[in-house]
């Protein structure tokens, strides 16, 4: 059993990687790409300021890298086994990563700063002697980190100026193909028309302004190189300070260069909060709805299925079959809207709350209902149940049909089994045959049906949460989609697929525990 579970857990890893890769590529291939909303964030700013903000964000989140590289970076952070330097964690719990390398500005070595390569960068400094008390060390680290942020910002600005100069050059010589739809230069096209090439001479010879524009490009490039060397210097300083470990290191080292540490889900673009916090708030809500719903499904559907099997062909059998098929065909969207309209809204009965999972003042409630100043107060538990009643109702009715039909079919199959005939022949009371022989043996398939219902329940909770404004995973997903929030979206899909896979595994384990004939060895 243990080896089976281990094997299943190991197989989960490629599955989860596959699913997140699929989602990641979908986002990357979509118009606007990753972080599309980020790029549109500064709606009211002036064009120049917005371009600058975009450039900062692209630099910070690495949005300009090819999507597979971005995915690998994401996967490396998610993986509990990490390679390379260990991160630090400050007192407020924020992770501090080693400073990123500063890339060369585009076209360096082609248009300007001839023969420059990354290898020319000065070597790393040894860990800095920050000295003094721990508080002083941390202050020194923070100062260097701010200096680096400033230098890097200046470099981003300089690079942006370079890009603008390139666009200006392309416009002057009328080279539309070198500008893409986002008014950014196409670097590949500029590589082909670098100064010194016949094509460049041709372009410049035609127009005097072109020569000036090309000189502006070279100037901007040199300025960018200067800004870069300052940024590289600041990065080296910061790196040295980082290596001095002013904060605690996270994770458990295994061998040099490899360590174990908790998966880091990153920070949400849109909410500016750690994704793990957001998931931590939403996942329990969704799970709670589903965990309330499951027992209800079993309590209603199993007896109905039993009774239908025992009285096969009776009006109860026919009616319950019809009713459940009807319920199964009723879309959740409709059920939610109709319940909201007729049972909750003021235009209808108004018996249930319209939105949310708690009353606004639920924090002040006691857990159990009691009297406050002679007034009845329903308490936190009842308040939650009252709010969850309609969402749960929408979740459960779907499963009735599947489960009761399965129960009925399993019972009917067992009724015709040899051991039942033997029991009857030996004179066992009919009720005992039904309950003690047939029902017990029919229970087994009901465990596996859990695996069928659970994914549809998770799907259903997206819609239900949306309709009843319940702050669960579904609502979070739709918000992440609307804002194109990469980190939140990926974490959401990741968590949902892990929960789903674990549920399927649980169903298999329960099946083996319940049925001694089943063994996974």
């Amino acid at each position, binding site marked *: 059993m243990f080896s089976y579970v281990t094997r299943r857990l190991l197989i989960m890893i490629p599955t989860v990687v596959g699913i997140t890769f699929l989602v990641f590529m979908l986002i990357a291939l*979509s118009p606007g790409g990753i972080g599309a909303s980020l790029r549109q964030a500064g709606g009211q700013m002036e064009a120049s300021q917005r371009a600058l903000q975009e450039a900062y964000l692209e630099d910070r989140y690495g949005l300009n890298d090819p999507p597979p590289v971005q995915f690998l970076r994401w996967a490396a952070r998610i993986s509990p086994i990490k390679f390379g330097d260990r991160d630090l964690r400050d007192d407020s719990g924020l992770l501090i990563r080693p400073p990123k390398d500063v890339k060369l500005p585009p076209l360096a070595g082609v248009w300007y700063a001839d023969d420059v390569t990354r290898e020319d960068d000065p070597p790393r400094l040894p860990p800095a002697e920050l000295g003094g008390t721990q508080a002083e060390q941390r202050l020194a680290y923070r100062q260097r980190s701010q200096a680096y942020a400033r230098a890097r910002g200046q470099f981003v600005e300089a690079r942006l100026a370079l890009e603008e100069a390139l666009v200006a050059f392309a416009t002057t010589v009328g080279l539309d193909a070198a500008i893409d739809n986002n008014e950014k230069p196409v670097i590949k096209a500029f590589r082909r028309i670098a100064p010194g090439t016949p094509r460049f001479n041709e372009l410049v010879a035609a127009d005097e302004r072109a020569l000036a524009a090309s000189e502006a490009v070279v100037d901007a490039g040199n300025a960018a190189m200067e800004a870069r060397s300052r940024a590289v210097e600041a990065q080296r300083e910061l790196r040295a300070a980082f290596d001095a470990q002013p904060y605690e290191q996270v994770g458990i080292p295994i061998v040099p260069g490899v360590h174990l540490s908790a998966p880091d889900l990153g920070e949400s673009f849109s909410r500016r909060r750690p994704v793990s916090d957001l998931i931590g708030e939403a996942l329990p809500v969704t799970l709670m709805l589903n965990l309330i719903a499951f027992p209800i499904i079993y309590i209603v559907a199993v007896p109905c299925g039993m009774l239908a099997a025992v009285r096969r062909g009776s009006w109860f059998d026919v009616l319950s079959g019809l009713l459940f098929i009807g319920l199964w065909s009723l879309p959740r969207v409709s059920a939610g*809207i109709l319940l909201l309209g007729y049972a909750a809204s003021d235009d209808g009965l108004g018996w249930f709350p319209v939105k949310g999972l708690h009353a606004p003042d639920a924090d002040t409630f006691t857990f159990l209902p009691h009297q406050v100043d002679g007034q009845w107060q329903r308490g936190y538990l009842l308040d939650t149940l009252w709010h969850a009643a309609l969402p749960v109702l929408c979740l459960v009715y779907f499963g009735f049909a599947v489960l009761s039909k399965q129960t009925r079919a399993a019972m009917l199959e067992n009724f015709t089994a040899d051991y039942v005939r033997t029991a009857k022949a030996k004179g066992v009371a009919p009720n005992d045959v039904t309950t003690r022989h047939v029902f017990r043996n029919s229970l087994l398939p009901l465990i596996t049906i859990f695996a069928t219902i659970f994914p549809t329940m*998770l799907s259903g909770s997206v819609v239900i949460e949306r309709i009843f404004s319940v702050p669960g995973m579904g609502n979070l997903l739709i918000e992440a989609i609307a804002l194109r929030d990469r980190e939140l979206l990926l974490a959401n899909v990741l968590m949902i697929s892990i929960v789903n896979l674990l549920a399927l595994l649980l169903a298999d384990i329960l099946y083996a525990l319940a049925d001694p004939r089943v063994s996974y060895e």
Partner: protein
Amino acid sequence: MPNPTDQSETTISGIHAMRGGALTAPKGFWAGAWSQVLKRPGAVAGLIWFGFIALLAVYAPLIANGHPLLMRELDANGDVVATSSPLLEFLAPSQWVLLVAMTLLIPLVLLPISGTSRGQRAGAVIGATVQAFTILLAVSAIRAWLGRWGASDAEREFLGSDSAPAIVAATGAFIVSALFAFIPTIVRLAPRLAVVGVSGVVAGVIVAGTWSQPPETFQYEERELAGEIETVYTLVPWSPAQRPTDRSAAVLEPGATSAQALMNNVTIALPRGVPIDDASLALAARDIERLPLEGDAGTTLAGAFARQFPPSSGPTIDTVESWLMGQLAPFGTPYALGTDGLGQDVLSQMIHACRLSISIGVVSTSIAVLIGVTIGALMGYFGGWVDMALYRVVEIFMSVPVLFLLIVAAGVLPRSTYVMMAIIGCFTWHGAARFTRAEFYKLRGQDFVQSARAVGLPLRSILFRHMLPNGVTPVLVDASFAIAAAILFEATLSFLGLGPPDQASWGKLLAGATSEVGDFVPWLAIYPSLAIFLTVLSLTLIGEALRDAIDPKLKKARV
């Protein structure tokens, strides 16, 4: 539920057989299954409903349209000057293709044409329809490319010329038709070329004929009142996207008329419960003047209003409303099921939404079956590492609830009907793959497969000509449930605002039923819900009946 007593078969003795008593022509496999399905009242009701919806889907533009079917223009003496059909003029090319194909389908299938079976004729029409739609897509792609940002002057000039429609349509039709001629849908070459050729010519003519359509305007009611035209409308005189021309589009109850919509435009700003003051009266008069009425009818009406309610008369809102209703009474086009928040007719949207539901259900299921059968066949036939590798892919799609993937894909990709068909198809194929894999796994050891291999048939032939017909049954039975699921997915995505923006949809209507402020519009909740419910229910009943007929042992598998 087949009752054992129902299936009592008369015992056949040798004498019976000698007299030919038991000799009836054996039914084919599918024909036998079909006759079993037709014995179940639920399934028959389901078939009738689905057929009704399909009919509405095909003929939606001829049933619900804001353009008159016939329009006679009159001169000042009331004589007919010209007769036209704005409805046909405004039909989109895709609607033309669907109308032509489906109108041909039924007579072609029912009429006996020697030498071909019904299935072949139906297949030919469906193949021709797919080809025609591909031509439409190809031509619009060529058009988009010619009119792209950064196109050269020559290209732009060509696109604007008079001969462009004919040339582009002919090019697109020819390229696509040539490609389709190579697909061996019909084994013999001559009839295949004939079908492909006819389809290509028809699609080309349709595309060229509908090349440039003016933007839709609906100014018929006013012109008719002014005596300029006479009109004959179809059953529902509203288009799904037809919005009232006034500024405040209020949600109207079922049974309200366009007069109500016009009146709301005036009275929505008036104070309720108190006598109306002079300033409000003046504003109302101005609003009346601005009503979208033909000629100076608005000014005349405003004058009448000022005479009826002179300053400081202080009428109540009820008097004003009843007077206005009387004046606007000629505008009597009813909204049978009310309007939505944008002032669009609900009934018309309901009818046109059948189109989106059925087409997404059928097309996306076809895509899913195509992908699933191919991958499942490879897995089942080869087994081993092919099976293991591909099953990991299947597992990826099984590991996350499909709706989550669909929401992500529909959210980030462009919103269009075709994209939605593609994503639903591409994310739901794993069911078909698993069924096919299991069947092929059983089949691959059988003698006929072994002998097909022994004679050296190509893999394509073994898999799809010999094994597939023996192993496709579970997939086809499941297709009915898959269509229902796809329709539910479409409704859910449209409800969440991720559907195609320019299409009427049941899910989109549902989304208007509740609002952030807590209003509830019952007719936007009930009618679409009923439509989705009945469609899904009928598909479920058909699927159950089909499954019971084909494999009585499978009955317990799935609802």
